[in-house]
């Protein structure tokens, strides 16, 4: 047995015998203690786990040869995990689960959520199972690879697939705890979801149609705006390209609802512009911004940068020599654009549209702040959970519909666009010069993009100005009042006292962001390594599993985590841990993508050279791959740090009084009408993020290739794929 396997065996026994098996829970009927002790006294269903451990120890005690020991480890690991998982569900919080009550008589024994001991034992069993597989020759007998695959599969299964499946189960669930397909169908067919009243001119349309309509508008709008920006940035001699770039990157480090907030401050009943119009032109103040127009404008502002980043890559990806060829064939500027450039852009446009579409569906903050009577799925799900009705089944059905929409969009993208990529840069020397835009296209782009850029600028100006004045639209007296409310620090005899109301949530947010970023990067890059460098059975399914959480809207993640992790065996709601886990698995696909992009540029023969020089997989990863992956590492760290600071949709379900996040706190301030504090906090948050990004850059450093021009060729961070 390998030394690592022995260490895991020790850890498994330690987890089973020494560490407390259950979460420390004063209400637990079983009390605390190791798994073995509880198994012998009060919880006999824990004893089979011990049997599995004995089986895992057997080959060591008997000194079996490599292959036979490996078979024992595989059997023990698999059996132990199965038993552990089954007992977790069979014995629930309040008696038998899995329908055993009718078989064995209610209520039966009860147990709480698994704790440190159970987690240690489960992890060790998994690692022993993987070590066994390696011993049987899987993945060329490389235990590092089998363990990595096992770990990623287990984590993704537990924290991505299991919650999503729980939603589907819950959508058909009755309040009593059973399941009824008829109830599922009736919930699904609810007229408040699919009604078409607005077409007939009476009443409102169903929430599903609302969501779709909005998403299509946003997809079209962001694509057009993004295209205009991309063409200006790449194909014109526009003087302020740098400013354009900056403006397009700003929304990435802005919590999404902040834009909605700024719109309220501009166009709300007491907004700056509304006040101006009323004072000068006598235009009556109205609530027009609340509803479809407001959400649409806010989402266009928030998601145009994404379309821009996608399309700028596509525009740059068109080989200039194609357009030059067209010109040498006597096609003039406009003809070349219409017959060559634009057709080559089409898949990119479809891609940008789909991203805008999905982002709009998944957006929660803006509809919450600006929605008014215009309901969309993400907010409706939220109110089904937290509102007066508290209908988990209905929330689950709505979440299922939203999930179906987004998964459908990604499926379309994958199935249809996957085969239609016209990226024509081949890596061979291609020294052509892209022609400038035809004049009418250029003017069209300017006419679209420049007003929009000014508008974005105005929005950000409002955010900055608004945080320093008493009340936007009414009282422009300069003040630090909002910052003081949020971030007051008092000098007391005991030392500094952070008495500002925002400190608590800011500290939690920072802690969660700082803790989740390295885990996200590690698991994402590890997955990317497995996907690009290893071949194993089920690789496609593995890839799909790791990318699923990309297509799951935050609201759906939030509700699925509540449904899955509010009860044993894995009971972690209300803790800080669930926030970290949520961010790790939500942001992991971006780390995977950016890792794959970087790894596919690193020749495989580097790994092989390292192997033939006697380095194993782990050493190779550590000494050869990781140093070359620095750009991807920075991208993954920055992305997950920023997302943890700005996301609101999933965490709003998961925060508790003790663990509140900055974004949810700000949303709360907005709902309470404390716009000044909200906006001051948002500004502070953006500043904190900028500092964080700089720190990450500084800590990770840059990839040293000893090449003078290497950095120009380094892949761009994969923020574009968000």
């Amino acid at each position, binding site marked *: 047995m390998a030394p690592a396997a022995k260490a895991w065996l020790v850890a498994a026994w330690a987890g089973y015998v020494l560490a407390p098996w259950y979460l420390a829970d004063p209400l637990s009927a079983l009390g605390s203690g190791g798994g073995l002790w509880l198994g012998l006294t009060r919880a006999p269903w824990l004893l089979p786990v011990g049997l599995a451990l004995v089986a895992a120890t057997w080959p060591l005690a008997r000194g079996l040869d490599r292959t036979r020991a490996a078979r024992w480890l595989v059997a023990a690991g698999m059996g132990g995990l199965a038993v552990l998982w089954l007992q977790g569900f069979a014995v629930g919080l309040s008696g038998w689960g899995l329908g055993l009550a009718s078989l064995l008589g209610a209520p039966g024994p009860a147990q709480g959520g698994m704790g440190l001991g159970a987690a240690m034992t489960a992890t060790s069993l998994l690692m022993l199972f993987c070590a066994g597989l390696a011993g049987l020759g899987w993945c060329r*007998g490389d235990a590092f690879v089998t363990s990595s695959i096992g770990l990623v599969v287990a984590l993704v299964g537990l924290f991505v697939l299991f919650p999503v499946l729980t939603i589907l189960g819950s959508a058909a669930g009755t309040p009593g705890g059973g399941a009824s397909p008829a109830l599922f169908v009736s919930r699904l067919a609810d007229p408040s979801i699919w009604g078409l009243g607005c077409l007939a001119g009476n009443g409102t349309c169903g929430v599903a149609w609302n969501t779709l309509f909005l998403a299509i508008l946003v997809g079209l709008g962001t694509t057009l705006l993004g295209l205009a920006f991309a063409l200006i940035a790449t194909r014109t001699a526009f003087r302020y390209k740098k400013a354009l770039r900056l403006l397009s990157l700003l929304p990435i480090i802005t919590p999404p609802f902040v834009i909605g907030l700024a719109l309220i401050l501009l166009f709300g009943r007491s907004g700056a512009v509304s006040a101006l119009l009323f004072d000068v032109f006598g235009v009556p103040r109205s609530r027009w911004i609340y509803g479809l127009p407001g959400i649409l404008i806010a989402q266009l502002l928030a998601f145009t940068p994404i379309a821009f980043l996608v399309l700028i890559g596509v525009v740059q990806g068109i080989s200039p020599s194609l357009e030059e060829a067209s010109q040498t064939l006597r096609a003039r500027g406009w003809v070349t654009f219409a017959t060559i450039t634009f057709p080559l852009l089409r898949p990119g446009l479809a891609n940008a549209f789909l991203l805008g579409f999905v982002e709009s569906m998944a957006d929660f903050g803006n509809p919450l702040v600006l929605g008014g009577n215009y309901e969309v799925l993400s907010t409706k799900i939220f109110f089904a959970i937290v509102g007066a009705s508290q209908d988990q089944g209905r929330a689950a059905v709505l979440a299922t519909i939203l999930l179906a929409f987004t998964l459908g969009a990604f499926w379309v993208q994958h199935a249809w666009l996957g085969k239609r990529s016209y990226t024509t840069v081949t890596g061979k020397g291609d020294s052509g010069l892209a022609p400038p835009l035809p004049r009418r296209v250029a003017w069209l782009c300017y006419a679209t993009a420049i007003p929009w850029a000014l508008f974005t600028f105005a929005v950000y100006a409002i955010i900055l100005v608004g945080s320093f004045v008493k009340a936007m639209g009414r009282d422009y007296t300069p003040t630090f009042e909002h910052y003081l409310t949020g971030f007051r620090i008092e000098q007391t005899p005991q030392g500094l006292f952070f008495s500002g109301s925002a400190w608590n949530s800011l500290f939690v947010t920072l802690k969660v962001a700082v803790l989740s970023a390295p885990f996200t990067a590690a698991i994402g890059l590890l997955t990317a390594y497995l996907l690009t460098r290893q071949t194993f059975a089920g690789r496609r399914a593995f890839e799909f599993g790791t990318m699923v959480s990309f297509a799951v809207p935050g609201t759906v993640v939030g509700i699925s985590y509540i449904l899955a992790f509010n009860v044993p065996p894995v009971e972690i709601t209300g803790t800080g841990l669930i926030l970290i886990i949520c961010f790790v698995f939500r942001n992991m696909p971006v780390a995977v993508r950016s890792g794959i992009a970087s790894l596919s540029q690193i020749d495989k023969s580097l790994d*092989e*050279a390292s192997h*033939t020089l006697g380095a194993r997989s782990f*050493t190779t990863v550590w000494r050869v791959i990781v140093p070359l992956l620095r750009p991807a590492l920075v991208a993954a760290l920055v992305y997950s740090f920023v997302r943890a600071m700005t996301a609101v949709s999933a965490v709003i379900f998961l925060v508790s009084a003790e663990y509140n996040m900055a974004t949810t706190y700000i949303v709360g301030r907005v709902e309470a009408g404390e716009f000044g504090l909200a906006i001051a906090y948002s500004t502070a948050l953006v500043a904190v993020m900028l500092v964080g990004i700089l720190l990450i850059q500084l800590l990770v450093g840059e990839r040293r290739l000893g090449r003078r021009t290497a950095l120009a060729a380094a892949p761009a961070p994969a923020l574009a794929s968000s």
Partner: protein
Amino acid sequence: MPRHAPASIEFRSVTKRYGTVTAVDDVSFTIEPGTLVTLLGPSGCGKTTTLRLIAGLEIASAGEILIGGRDVTTQAAADRNVSMVFQSYALFPHMSVLDNVAYGPKVQGLGRARAHALALEKLELVGLSGLGNRSPSELSGGQQQRVAVARALVLEPEVLLFDEPLSNLDAKLRRRVRDDIRDLQQRLNLTVAYVTHDQEEALAVSDRIIVMSNARIAQSGTPRELYEEPASVFVADFIGNANLLPGDLLREEGDRAVIQVGALTIDLPRRGASRGPVTVAVRPDAIRLHGTQPSSPAIQAQVAKAAYLGGHVEYTVGSALGELFAVDRTDRTPMPVGAPVWISFADRDVTVVPR
């Protein structure tokens, strides 16, 4: 580090499958210690897979691989005492030349000072002393190649593998590097397996050549055996561009045979052929071209192309036997296209190819 004696490599019925594709099919061979053996074949014939199987970068689907008499079939690359020089050189771009060469000893757990001493020694061996602090991208292609060789040699492996080491070098440099590799191999008494698709390179450096085709071994032997006694049409064609002509074996006379090729009747070693149609391989050098009809029997043909190449003239001629490729080293004045010629064969470099 102990100096390892060169080891033998033995394949026993080794098969490598990727899904339904068989890359190496039931291959057996032995490479003697201290020899340089070339795996030669067209792309996709399985030669690189065979090399990677020796290195442990691929694990055989069936069969046994022995290195130095020990079974290493399931051993990972890191556990085998085998080093490889990659086609792309695979120099770690984030390390200096010295760190690249010292990588092997370092990951084996040797101290930094000891690893660097070993690396400097090997850099000197390949003639790169003083360049240790450069980054690989600051070296020329030929220098990078030598770094790769130094890095592969630093662990003093039992077996050294080369995967098309010359393919990234320009034509002039190839001949020199080729000679350097052969020189190094003989000086250090190394067992070397060498993959190439260039038959001239293979003939020049090898003790033995293993010709592969369609995942199997087509023939193995010394360069001379392969050139003079090709075992199949494929080998005859692949090594030395033979003209493959249809013939008719008229009479078996012990180990000789009388064979009719067009208008010519020739007497050749029989090589196991029996009466009936046979294929005769004729090297371009063995085709004699006559401007006027000779008195002895000859095949009539016509010049289709003629290329003057300095030391010799290459001809493509059309005849009743099909297009023939001929090299004339005697007369440097090319015959004009369309001129009638008569063909006869030299005594050497004409063989019957077993079917």
